[in-house]
């Protein structure tokens, strides 16, 4: 079932690709080196939802930062629509794991920040900001500051902040991992709904296999670190539209889960053993 790592993608143009990307960091002592990601190739097609799963601390976020242009790889390159990426990836939106909203701006001003940076007029930006806040279910919360919003609401603001710029590529780094299970499933469904109305290419990082299967068209399994690299790819042929809570009960989901977990399990155990040391 698993295809060769990074080899085949489904039909359609490739929007985002990693070409033999390696990321090494200087260690604590001089001369020491830590290789987070090693020789990774991966391609994401237009409108494709790809999840990357792997044990905690395996360098998933490093991969995402390379795609965002926040981090230059030690060797290899990231390609956006065939062009080598240099500097910030302007065609991508990034949703961070941690809270990334500006605490001194209210919800509306946070959502419109990207428009402001692009020189859109205040009124036009505010109008679109209100529209997007309503779309993520936060109409009436425009003037709340981040600390006055719940964790789930802050994630919604972050989602609107990213989507208002209409990026072609969505990079998401365990965006819902800090939420409770119920809120999380609601947010996952909302994300799928927003995504299906205007299909973007998504690279979704998570350590939660169920989340990955429920959301994605394709799941990529990474090995435990150091020197993380893809060790398996699984197309997810579950029908859409999906309800993330219900789909977990379908027999095909269970089958897929079993197959992927078979590959992932040994890596998780490896990662766990390293964490204990």
């Amino acid at each position, binding site marked *: 079932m698993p295809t060769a790592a990074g080899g085949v993608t489904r039909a359609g143009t490739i929007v985002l690709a990693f070409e033999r990307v390696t990321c090494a960091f200087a260690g604590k002592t001089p001369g020491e080196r830590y290789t987070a990601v090693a020789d990774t190739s991966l391609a994401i097609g237009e409108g494709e939802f790809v999840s990357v799963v792997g044990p905690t601390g395996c360098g998933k976020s490093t991969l995402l930062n390379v795609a965002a242009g926040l981090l230059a790889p030690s060797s290899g390159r990231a390609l956006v629509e065939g062009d080598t990426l240099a500097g910030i990836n302007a065609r991508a939106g990034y949703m961070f794991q941690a809270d*990334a909203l500006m605490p001194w701006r209210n919800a509306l001003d946070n959502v419109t*920040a990207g428009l402001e940076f692009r020189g859109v007029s205040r009124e036009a930006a505010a109008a679109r900001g209100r529209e997007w806040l309503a779309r993520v279910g936060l109409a009436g919360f425009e003037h709340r500051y981040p600390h006055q919003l719940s964790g789930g609401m802050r994630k919604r603001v972050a989602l609107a902040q990213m989507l208002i710029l209409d990026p072609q590529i969505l990079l998401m780094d365990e965006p819902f991992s800090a939420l409770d299970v119920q809120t999380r499933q609601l947010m996952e469904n909302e994300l799928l709904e927003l995504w299906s109305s205007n299909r973007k290419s998504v690279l979704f990082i998570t350590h939660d296999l169920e989340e990955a299967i429920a959301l994605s068209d394709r799941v990529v399994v990474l090995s435990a670190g150091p020197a993380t690299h893809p060790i398996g790819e699984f197309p997810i042929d579950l029908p859409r539209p999906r309800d993330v809570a219900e789909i977990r009960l379908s027999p095909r989901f269970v089958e897929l889960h079993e197959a992927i977990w078979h590959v992932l399990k040994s890596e998780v155990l490896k990662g766990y053993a390293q964490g204990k040391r």
Partner: protein
Amino acid sequence: MRKASGDSRPGRASLALWHVAILAILFGVWYALTTPGLVDEAYANKIAFFFGRPLQVVKVVIAWFTSGKIYPHLAITLWETLLAFAIGSIFGLAVGLWLALSPTASAIAEPYITALNAMPRVILAPIFAVWFGLGVLSKVALGVTLVFFIVFFNVYQGVKEVSPVVLANARMLGASRKQLLRAIYLPSATSWVFSSLHTSVGMAFVGAVVGEYLGSAKGVGYLILQAEGVFDINTVIAGIVVLTVFALLLDFIVTKIEARLLVWRPRTAETEAL
């Protein structure tokens, strides 16, 4: 922290009562010790020479305000305080931002900043008097040297501690370097400036009064200096009382301004009235 078995803290009304009572007791003891008849006259006069007499002090304060003699002096002191605070803050903010964002500049400036900060800056007052004369400017200069470092260190720290995630997020949203300065660094730094508002306003006030005391022709510090010259201890203490009340007033205003400007700051256990 509340105790499980009842709250031992006094309520609002009884707390105010306590505050007034302590003040009354202090005043009473002061009065008793300096009034001939209640203590031996020779002792009373000796104590009054050093500590003044409360009723005389009150009389001086009342005379100041009824005759209007104090207002121009207060106005000068306030003006010096405000100027010192504003100029010191702007310099502190600008230099703090610059050094925090430019590692080379900060590495070069570091020993000088440390030395200037370690120096007891009140000692600069005579030099400022020579440079700027005995007018407002020399007091403002002294206040600026005091305010600058408080604001500078706060801004420097504030910029260094900007959340890297917030920063990365703004970059992903397309902020240029200039926009990052405006949208991230400046608000983050100003929030630190505001949180040091109490200290810096207080320091501006200290600069103004000490400057006046060391040589001036106007201001509350000047009044105190004059009175001290003729051993008029009552007037000295009256000046101190006026300055204290004034400082409390400034602090109160700063608290109000702070609450308005830092609405976005989370407070612990915030509830909303329905």
